[in-house]
């Protein structure tokens, strides 16, 4: 055997050894990664949120460039600017967050108004006979109303606190007479479905409500601790100046070097455009609803709060609009003192106007915001959207619903780009 053959033989053996080592290492890393994700599942969401925020705010950080300032100081300055804006935003929002007294008033008013509207809708004829349609609706909506009433019922402590506030407590002005009347009327709210009509459903619903109302305190504490990770991840990813990308690219074999660079870049571009586009779209939807509600005479505080929530849930396709509609209609049903800028508008026909407003916002979103902000960035089949939202809600509740579509978009873009680039580089 010549020296060249010997060298080739050794090289072949080395190649096999390298392959075995890589495979073993990758399998171990996968197993360890899976185990850690399973064990530390409570940390996953804060990490994702922190990373997502860092990703979203990266353009702000990159725009903030002062050549003579070290990178770390530049990042700190950009964080300070972001922090300052967020602080003022939260400070403004905080002023509109209701205190304990306002919360109690709101709960009492909501229960009273909902029942009042429901009873108006279900008004029977003077002879006491209800129409067949009304009877049918009553049969279907009645149990739901009972559940809502159960949820809005003040517990003994809240009732005691309400009576204290009624007399003037904690330096607050006494609760208005009309709220006290609502409170008294709520005490006499009857059940819309008699126990014989729904024998099994009610206890199950009560148990479900009770289970939801009493989360274990320890669990709450641990999840709060986990959320400290989110700002930490945000800050440390913010300080990263491409080192992480360099590190991961250094692990890639030479053959896939250019491919992985292009792939990462395309993914970053597509996902960045989608996420930032969605954020802008949500902001525009929230702003439209907020301005519309102010135009309809709803006070600025609730209008801003409804706009914020509606904007946030707008990230959930279709369902977001439905949730926004429910929130807006719920408020419209209980609104009393409105100062509308549109003539002829009163609390009785406010729900109709709110319905029109939500419709207009939806059309604006479809016709103007989405094409303008998102373009045709990502098209997902409606069936995939529905399945993803349901799946997301089953796995992680509301957060799962919000993150379901971005996750689908990331996976879809990654697969599409990967296959395209693999073909371009003649690897497959």
């Amino acid at each position: 055997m010549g020296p060249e053959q010997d060298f080739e033989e050794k090289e072949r053996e080395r190649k096999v050894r390298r392959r075995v080592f890589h495979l073993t290492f990758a399998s171990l890393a996968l197993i360890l990664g899976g185990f850690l994700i399973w064990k530390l599942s409570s940390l996953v969401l804060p990490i994702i949120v922190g990373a997502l925020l860092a990703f979203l705010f990266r353009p702000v950080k990159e725009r903030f460039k002062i050549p003579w300032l070290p990178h770390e100081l530049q990042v700190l300055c950009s964080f300070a600017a972001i922090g300052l804006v967020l602080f003022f935003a939260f400070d403004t929002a905080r002023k509109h967050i209701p205190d304990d007294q306002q919360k109690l008033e709101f709960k009492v008013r909501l229960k009273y108004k909902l029942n009042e509207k429901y009873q108006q809708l279900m008004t029977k004829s003077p002879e006491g006979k209800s129409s067949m349609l009304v009877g049918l609706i009553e049969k279907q909506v009645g149990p739901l109303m009972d559940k809502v009433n159960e949820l809005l019922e003040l517990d003994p402590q809240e009732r005691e606190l309400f009576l204290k506030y009624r007399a003037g407590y904690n330096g607050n002005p006494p609760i208005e007479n009309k709220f006290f009347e609502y409170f008294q009327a709520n005490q006499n709210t009857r059940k819309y479905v008699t126990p014989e009509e729904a024998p099994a459903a009610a206890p199950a619903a009560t148990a479900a409500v009770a289970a939801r109302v009493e989360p274990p305190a320890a669990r709450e504490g641990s999840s709060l601790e986990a959320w400290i990770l989110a700002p930490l991840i945000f800050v440390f990813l913010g300080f990263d100046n491409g080192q992480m990308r360099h590190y991961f690219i250094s692990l890639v074999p030479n053959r896939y070097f250019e491919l992985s660079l292009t792939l990462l870049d395309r993914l970053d571009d597509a996902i960045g455009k989608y996420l930032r586009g969605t954020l802008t779209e949500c902001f525009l939807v929230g702003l439209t609803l907020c301005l519309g509600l102010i135009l309809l005479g709803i006070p600025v505080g609730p209008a801003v709060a409804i706009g914020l929530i509606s904007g946030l849930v707008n990230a959930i396709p279709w369902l977001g609009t439905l949730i926004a509609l429910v929130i807006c209609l719920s408020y419209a049903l209980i609104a009393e003192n409105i100062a509308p800028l549109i003539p002829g508008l009163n609390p009785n026909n406010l729900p109709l106007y709110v319905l029109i407003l939500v419709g207009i916002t939806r059309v604006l979103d479809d016709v103007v915001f989405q094409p303008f902000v998102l373009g045709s960035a990502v098209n997902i089949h409606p069936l995939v959207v529905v399945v993803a939202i349901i799946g997301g809600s089953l796995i992680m509740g509301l957060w799962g619903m919000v993150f379901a579509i971005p996750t689908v978009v990331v996976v879809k873009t990654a697969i599409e780009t990967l296959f395209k680039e693999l073909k371009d580089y003649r690897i497959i």
Partner: protein
Amino acid sequence: MLQKSPPNHDGPPNHAGGTLLASEPRGMSSSAKPMSARKLVADKLLWETLKRWKRSSPELDRIQFLKTVPFFNELSHRQLKTVSDTLFERNYETDELIFEEGQPGAVLFLILDGKVAVEMCRENHTTTLAILEKGAFFGEMALLNEAPRSANARSLERTYTLALYRNDLSRLIQRDPQTACQIYRALASIIGDRLRSTNELMHTEIPTDKV
């Protein structure tokens, strides 16, 4: 990896030692003298270590190397540091393909050490167009567009390269327009020179009456 600079045996600057001796208080006892001599030796050692460490840091070595590359020779130290931060280090074994003809180009390669053959394959026949060595660069057209590579690049021995990604250079336009502009100007000048030499070659190869 980057080649380490040879250890520096230069002594500390004279003024350092001079200052140290001059600062010695007058009327010091004879026992204090060996102490200050020991201190002087310790300082000298520390100075040399720091100097050697500073000179052999991979980042500085890389910047020193970049200064020798025609692409970057007009850039300042600060600008070279900015460019250096965006470069990827890639090592290739003997006879390893760096890129293949027809693949979309994305990266310019600078040879830190080693030898690379640029070759073209036509009908089972390979023609070597050039053999590039330390300090040379190849794949520069990839910095301009995504056009497919026009030739293969293969390492002839263990080769260390630095790679500059097209989109990193594009992003540099936003972050540091002056640096990016200087690099693009150098690139345009190099491509212009190559076009001129190709034209000259065509004129010498093809007689004027046949054109």
